[in-house]
């Protein structure tokens, strides 16, 4: 009995990672209707950037975040302004093709620079520390911290989007990217800011993930897939739903892994498909209006 509770709790905790993977994706899709197929690869890119910093300067990966998050935000802004804005229009295909191409470019760049070896950011005992809730039920402090960070990031984003002027401009741009220009606001700049935010979260996600699981240049698409599934399970456009979607995915994977370690990823996909069939708009679709 307690072992099943343990499995479910561990699954819940992993949901924090998936929510962080998904938040950037959700933001970019929400504001620009742009599906960034390279999102997972940018997460992995951030992890490798942290690895390079750690190896070069022998500092803690968490310290790297001070540098990685603003760098990723800047990269996101420039990418949006210089490349992605040019792909936006009535046709949905160009952004898909361009971000798919970016995904391949990043994977090969990482392969050339860092080889195909699996890597992990050195966090020492931080990732193995745990607290015991009940006999037989231990909670890893690191995934718990990641879950709390994910909730904090989503909470902060909500406050930003709903309480600030710039947040209102972003929501308005999401509603109507043409009419926003009649307010004297450059929609290209708002798009850039949305992507900068998305990439800042991707940078955070990459470093946190890199300290917890192995990653390699080919890990990107899997992160993308988990992010997508968390979004769809939770309901499109609802960031808190995404967090819960990530938890559902994590629990399904944990149960699958318990039955047979080979079923871990498969169980997540099955849960995703089952929820898609039962509730095509996700568990917590955004209220209308």
């Amino acid at each position: 009995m307690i072992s099943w509770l343990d499995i479910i709790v561990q699954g819940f905790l992993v949901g924090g990672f998936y929510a962080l993977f998904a938040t950037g994706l959700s933001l970019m899709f929400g504001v620009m209707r742009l599906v960034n197929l390279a999102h997972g690869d940018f997460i992995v890119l951030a992890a490798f950037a942290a690895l390079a910093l750690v190896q070069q300067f022998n500092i803690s990966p968490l310290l790297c975040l001070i540098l990685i998050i603003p760098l990723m935000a800047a990269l996101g802004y420039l990418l949006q302004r210089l490349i992605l804005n040019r792909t936006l229009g009535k046709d949905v295909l160009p952004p898909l093709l361009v971000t798919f191409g970016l995904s391949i470019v990043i994977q090969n760049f990482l392969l050339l620079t860092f080889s195909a070896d699996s890597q992990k950011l050195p966090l020492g005992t931080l990732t193995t520390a745990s607290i015991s809730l009940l006999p037989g039920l231990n909670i890893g402090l690191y995934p718990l911290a990641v879950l709390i960070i994910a909730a904090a990031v989503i909470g902060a984003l909500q406050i930003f989007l709903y309480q600030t002027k710039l947040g209102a401009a972003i929501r308005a741009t999401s509603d109507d990217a043409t009419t926003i220009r009649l307010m004297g606001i450059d929609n290209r700049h708002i798009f850039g800011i949305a992507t900068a935010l998305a990439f800042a979260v991707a940078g955070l996600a990459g470093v946190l993930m890199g300290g917890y699981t192995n990653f390699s240049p080919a890990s990107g698409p899997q992160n993308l897939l988990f992010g997508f599934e968390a979004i769809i399970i939770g309901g499109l456009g609802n960031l808190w739903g995404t967090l819960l979607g990530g938890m559902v995915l994590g629990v399904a994977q944990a149960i699958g892994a318990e039955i047979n370690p080979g079923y871990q990823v498969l169980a997540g996909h099955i849960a995703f498909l089952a929820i898609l069939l039962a509730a095509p708009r996700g568990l917590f679709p955004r209220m209308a209006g």
Partner: protein
Amino acid sequence: MFLQTKSLTAFYGDFQALFGIDLTIEAGELVGLIGANGAGKTTLLRAITGLLPAGPDSIFFNGAPIGGMRAENLVRLGIAMVPEGRKLFPSLSVEENLKLGAASGRQGAWNLGRIFKLFPILEERRHAPATKLSGGQQQMVAIGRALMANPTLLLCDEISLGLAPIVIAEVYRALPEIRASGTAIIVVEQDIAQVMRIADRLYCLREGRVVLQGPAQSMDRHEIAQAYFGALA
């Protein structure tokens, strides 16, 4: 000359919608723009606001060429539009919609308090989602949102569309006060009687060309009908 278009042309892809429009408006003037559906009225407004590309020397504002400038920069110069269909932001409350109108940072007589004085019902509904309001109230939000930019030129595209006559009267009652603040106004309108009552001058468009223009007072209905529909035997 406050605003002047010179042989202005506009295209949607390969389709030419405007064929050399010459239009002028003086500071503080109220000009009516009439014409049947597809005559090019909305296209003309979209070209003036920069939402449609225009040749550099085809539009002048305060003597400076503004053709081809981006819409967001034209707002900062003082050109605001109440777009056709209102185009309120559904995710935002009434107040948020209005405040966004001031994003260009232009100073002037119009602020949230003055908009609420002009349309008191909006103050009552300020926290409601903008698109939950009635059609007339939504139109008031759209007008208020444009005024928040403190424009010197306000373009109103079919502000009576889909509204009940009593509501239209209420919306139109705001225009004299807007003029009194020194703002020039171009009104696109299907209801010719309505626009003849308030406009100084009228332009009638047909198939992307100006087919009639002159002071609103001196035009007779027969002349307008002929310009509106083309040669009537």
